[in-house]
């Protein structure tokens, strides 16, 4: 039995953590619904619900286009990245060859490079490939960012899959391709959803590459677009609009997490072996 004190600590602690985590977002929503001098008051509920900020961000710049760009880049990155990562993880996790662990360590260390360190080199590469100011340039550079950790995570999951299933498939005449994408892929769903979501968030939030590799506002992604928002004069930061834009771009992420939460279920491999 929990004592009252324990209960108090448990619920009090949880409440504290939730407040710390959610308050900034709450404040963003509240600020986005304020206009003018209301912004600088500390009301927890906006005095008048001013939706104007939400309308303005789509009017004053191609923000809709920016959102579409971000979606395209993020989904493109996730698709390419997962396809490559599954194949790589199969090789690294299921096939034994010389230098396998060295390769894995290299991949891990690459994922720890600071972004700034690769920025100039990446810029040259993007220019040479003629992908400057182009969404494919962003997908390509994000793939470089996300591949190491997706490969690493998927390899770990791939290693855990029972060997007998693979052997049964080999005896059943399945090719490596079939084993990888028809047998293992469905078993890896939880891992794919998790890593896919991480890659999506990484691509959605990325700022530095997006800022460096694009020049026109039409080609920008959301983080850059928000950062470069200006008010009536150069010296005014349009807080209300920035907050409105932040709220708008956070929604897809929350939506995705809620949708895929159901897919992240354990025990998907139940019934394969023993059990």
């Amino acid at each position, binding site marked *: 039995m929990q004592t009252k004190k324990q209960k108090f600590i448990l619920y009090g602690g949880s409440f504290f953590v939730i407040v710390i985590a959610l308050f900034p977002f709450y404040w963003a929503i509240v600020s986005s619904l304020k206009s003018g001098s209301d912004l600088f008051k500390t009301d927890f509920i906006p005095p008048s619900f001013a939706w104007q900020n939400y309308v303005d961000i789509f009017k004053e710049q191609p923000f809709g286009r920016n959102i579409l760009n971000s979606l395209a880049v993020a989904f493109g990155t996730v698709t390419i990245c997962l396809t490559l990562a599954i194949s790589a993880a199969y090789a690294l996790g299921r096939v034994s060859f010389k230098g396998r662990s060295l390769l894995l360590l290299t991949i891990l260390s690459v994922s720890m490079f600071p972004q700034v360190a690769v920025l100039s080199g990446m810029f040259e590469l993007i220019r040479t490939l003629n992908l400057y100011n182009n969404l494919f340039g962003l997908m390509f550079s994000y793939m470089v960012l996300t591949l190491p950790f997706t490969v690493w995570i998927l390899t770990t999951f791939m290693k855990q899959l029972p060997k007998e299933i693979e*052997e*049964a498939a*080999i005896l*059943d005449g*399945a090719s490596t391709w079939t084993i990888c994408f028809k047998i293992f892929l469905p078993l890896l769903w939880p891992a794919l959803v998790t890593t896919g979501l991480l890659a999506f968030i990484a691509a959605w939030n990325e700022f530095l590459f997006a800022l460096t590799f694009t020049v026109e506002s039409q080609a920008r992604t959301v983080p850059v677009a928000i950062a470069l928002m200006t008010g009536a004069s150069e010296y005014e930061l349009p807080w209300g609009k920035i907050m409105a834009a932040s709220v708008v771009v956070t929604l897809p992420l929350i939506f995705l997490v809620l949708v895929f939460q159901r897919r992240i279920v354990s025990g*998907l491999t139940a*019934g394969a*072996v*023993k059990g």
Partner: protein
Amino acid sequence: MGRVVLSNLKKTFGKVEVLHNINLDIKKNEFTVFVGPSGCGKSTLLRLIAGLEDVTEGTILIEDEDVTLMRPAKRGVAMVFQSYALYPHMTVYENMSFALRRTKYPKEEIHRRVMDAAEVLQVTHLLDRQPKQLSGGQRQRVAIGRAIIRDPRVFLFDEPLSNLDASLRVKMRMRIAKLKEKLHTTMIYVTHDQVEAMTLADKIVVLNAGNIEQVGTPLELYNHPCNKFVAGFIGSPKMNFMKVKITGLKNEVVTLSLPHERVMTLPVSLPKSMRNMGPGSSAELGVRPEHLVECAESSSLFVGTIQTIEHLGSELYVYVKISEDQTVLMRASGDKKFEVGATLFLKALPADCHLFHPDSELAFDRFSSVSGPV
């Protein structure tokens, strides 16, 4: 269907040789059981035949076709795994038809085969379910069904019953025995359980430390084990072994001196390698617990005090200390009365006694065999 011939088969993992020069001829439609303690290489041998491991040296023939370097799927073998290894995201129907869907079989034919196999294994009502909704026994039946459906030249079973609980294991054993009658296919079955081996096999191959110790029918192995290892491995409870002295060897009759100044004569024929055995050499006498019987003092071969009695209901295991450092186990029917501490006189028929060379542990051939020599 297929005859399987293994010749001079060797397998090494790194620097460790786990199979040394295996030669074996498995006849068409024979049910062969590989049996041995864990780590003896029996599973490795099966995996070599399946093609899941590469052969280091030697050849494997299936129906006179050299399959040593052939891909597993092309060999015409199907395997049932200890852990079932069903595809968890597919229904039973999809699991069973998976292999055929890789080939160019017409859909109706695949369907017919799945239904046939499902009926044989009584899983027709489970076809739409996923493996996680099945019990252990049902999963194993589906795994067998997945193998049957391919109509393989050789069936391979890798300890298929080890994951099942005891009562289910007996049921499945019977099912497999029935299946064997129905399918008429070469089957190779790996187990560490000698009861499974005895009950299912046409031919048992006893493996130990990467070598074949003996090949024979279950009764041949039980009655004429060729060495001490096989004698100890086949039969439950284990055969009793006693150190004895050879006191006389004449006209192919050996005289043994037993503890408590008792003497026993056994008709044997010495293989060439044992011709140097003479009076004074030691040997090991083997008698199965079920062959020791209580008798009068005058005709007894062994005498000792009862140490422990184990009641199994239908039978009794009586541990009798026959000398300072040797205890033998006697199996008696459950209605007999024994008392711990009492003196017991025991004997065994010469035909039920086995004599082993002390160093090579090879068995002396006996004339008075119940069935013909190996």
